[in-house]
């Protein structure tokens, strides 16, 4: 009797493990990780210089910028909106804090103060991001205008401020200590990548373990239901755009520290598309969104981008070809997502 029980328990355990594996395979995260692995293998086979220490480090240096921007795009996407002004916010905050560091802060500092120095620049740019986010949030939340329209016009507005301040040129002559974030690494891992990991964790905690995250999900699923259950939708929208603005400004600092300059046009043409692409790839829809998926999708996009770059090197106008491929890729992912949704509904 006892023996039989044990056997049954064993079978149950076995079944539950199988079920668990089945469920894991079905998740988007698993699919994304598989895609990442396959892409990595394919590029490593076809490009000799792909799987080297140098190219991997350079990838880790490049991806935090648009990784954080994708997080900034993801949160508005979770309530069915779009924030197209993220790149212009990033550039504006980089330019403003760049001006601050050139004009206000002393130019030569002892090295032990560089942390305070970088901290103050971060703080300033995050304040800028907060203000721009508040601006977007009021227009979308309280006035009720469409988020695409609002952020398209604030995109022009913020870029306009940047152009006006820099007179259309690139802001250079920034102090060396800003470049520390974009060029140094700790234990072989770039600092900017570490910042990206930390920021992702913070966003994960906000979305999954705070009342705000719960409300965002609820509002994304059904706006009127959340309104009638006592959630102030307008306040949530404002908070969402403020978070989005702050995240973009962090990304602005990363861009500034990597290039040691600030300009209104960095990433202006492709980063918006890339961030939406990442959001769609990660399966972010109204009411749903996982930071882990976004993180893996960012890695995938960086692998594709670097791989293509290596393959296309030396071909004239290859950046135009890349644009073309990004567009097609986005459409293909849309279609795949559509069919997956259909399959889910059928089963």
């Amino acid at each position, binding site marked *: 009797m006892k023996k039989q029980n044990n056997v049954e328990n064993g079978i149950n355990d076995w079944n539950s493990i199988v079920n668990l594996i089945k469920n894991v395979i079905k998740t988007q995260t698993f699919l994304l990780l598989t895609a990442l692995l396959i892409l990595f293998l394919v590029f490593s086979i076809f490009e000799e210089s792909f799987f080297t220490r140098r190219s991997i480090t350079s990838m880790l240096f490049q991806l935090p910028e648009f990784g954080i921007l994708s997080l900034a795009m993801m949160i508005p996407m979770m309530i069915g909106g779009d924030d197209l002004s993220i790149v212009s916010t990033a550039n504006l905050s980089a330019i403003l804090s760049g001006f601050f560091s050139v004009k206000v802060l002393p130019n030569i500092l002892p090295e032990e103060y560089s942390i305070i120095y970088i901290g103050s620049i971060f703080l300033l740019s995050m304040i800028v991001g907060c203000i721009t986010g508040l601006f977007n949030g009021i227009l979308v939340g309280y006035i009720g205008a469409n988020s695409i329209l*609002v952020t398209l016009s604030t995109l*022009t*507005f913020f870029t*306009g401020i940047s152009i*006006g301040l820099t007179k259309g040129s690139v802001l250079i002559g920034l102090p060396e200590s800003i470049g520390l974030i974009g060029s140094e690494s700790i234990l072989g891992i770039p600092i900017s990548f570490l910042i990206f990991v930390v920021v992702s964790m913070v966003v994960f905690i906000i979305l999954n373990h705070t009342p705000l995250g719960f409300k965002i999900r609820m509002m994304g699923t059904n706006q009127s239901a959340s309104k009638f259950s006592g959630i102030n939708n307008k306040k949530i929208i404002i908070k969402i755009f403020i978070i989005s603005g702050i995240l973009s400004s962090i990304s602005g600092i990363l861009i500034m520290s990597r290039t040691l300059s600030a300009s209104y046009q960095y990433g202006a043409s*492709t980063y918006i598309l890339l961030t939406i692409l990442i959001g769609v790839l990660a399966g972010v829809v109204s009411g749903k969104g996982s930071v882990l998926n976004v993180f893996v999708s960012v890695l995938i996009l960086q692998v594709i981008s670097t791989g293509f770059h290596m393959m296309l090197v030396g071909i004239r106008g290859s950046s135009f070809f890349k644009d073309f491929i990004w567009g*097609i890729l986005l*459409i293909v992912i849309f279609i795949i997502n559509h069919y997956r949704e259909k399959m889910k509904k059928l089963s």
Partner: protein
Amino acid sequence: MFRKIYSANEFVTFIIILLISIFIGLINPAFFSIASIFDVLRSSIVYIILALGLLPVMIVGGIDISFVAIGALSAYSTHMLLINNGYEGGVFLYYIIACSIGIIASFLNSILTTKFNLNIFNVSLALYIMWFGFVRFFVGSKRSATFPEGASNFYSKFLLTVKDPFVGNSNLHISILFVVIIGLVLMLILRYTTFGRGIYAIGGDRDVALRTGFKVNRILTGSFIIMGGLAAFAGITHSFLIRLFDPTMFLGDELDVIAAVVLGGASINGGRGSVIGTFMGVIVIQLIHRSIILIGIPVTWQDFIVGFILIIFISIPYLKTIIKEKLVDKKVAHEETK
């Protein structure tokens, strides 16, 4: 009757046109002349065609930005095709080929949005980048200013010429006729055909339109065809007017056109919008660009001003509804206290 006119969004737009005109006129009295009217009209021609193409899609309830890329794609590839084959004829063939390319390209928008049920804006963003990349990589990235013989003097075909004491002769280009014809046809389509009423119905409520028996997918495809065709038409007209075929024409102009359509009373939630309103919306945007130059604001601050004004204009319709709701609330409260 007056109340109806007053409450229409077009009325607000008209008032804005008047205010800006008076403002510019105060700074520069030379503005009140036929010459400057011609000038504003000339610079608006292309944008009116683009905006009219976008109008049906906006009424349906979508925001599309790919139309500028479709315009550039069809105009530039038509030009390259004809020039490389030694074409020496007139503009007629240009328009025919370009519009066909535009319509074919717009099928991609409609297939993706109807068959796969995708968001119109997301699709258009992908196509925007894709087409601009395509035309610059596969067709060519160089500007071209060589024109076939038969079409080379199209830019100087004028409908009217007026002598002006300030600026000498000022002319109204013949393509203003195209604008009038396109506007009239679109107005008739929107008002008096089942297709046109269907566009408004889908914009109002898609499910209701579906249940009423409108063929939603066909109507969506139709609006995209209008968009693609007119974008190509605008692309050719633009290139002939400035005597330059540029693969990046209209790049970055999408916001101006969208803002013009919104300003003309089209609701982004769909179901509203008119040809006359769109026409006035484009004029307003052109007047703003003009007044910025006249006031003497430095070029580097122009985007800032334009962006700021766009934000205000986009909020106006929403502010109006908010105020209206507040007034209704007050009325209700007032009657209750009685």
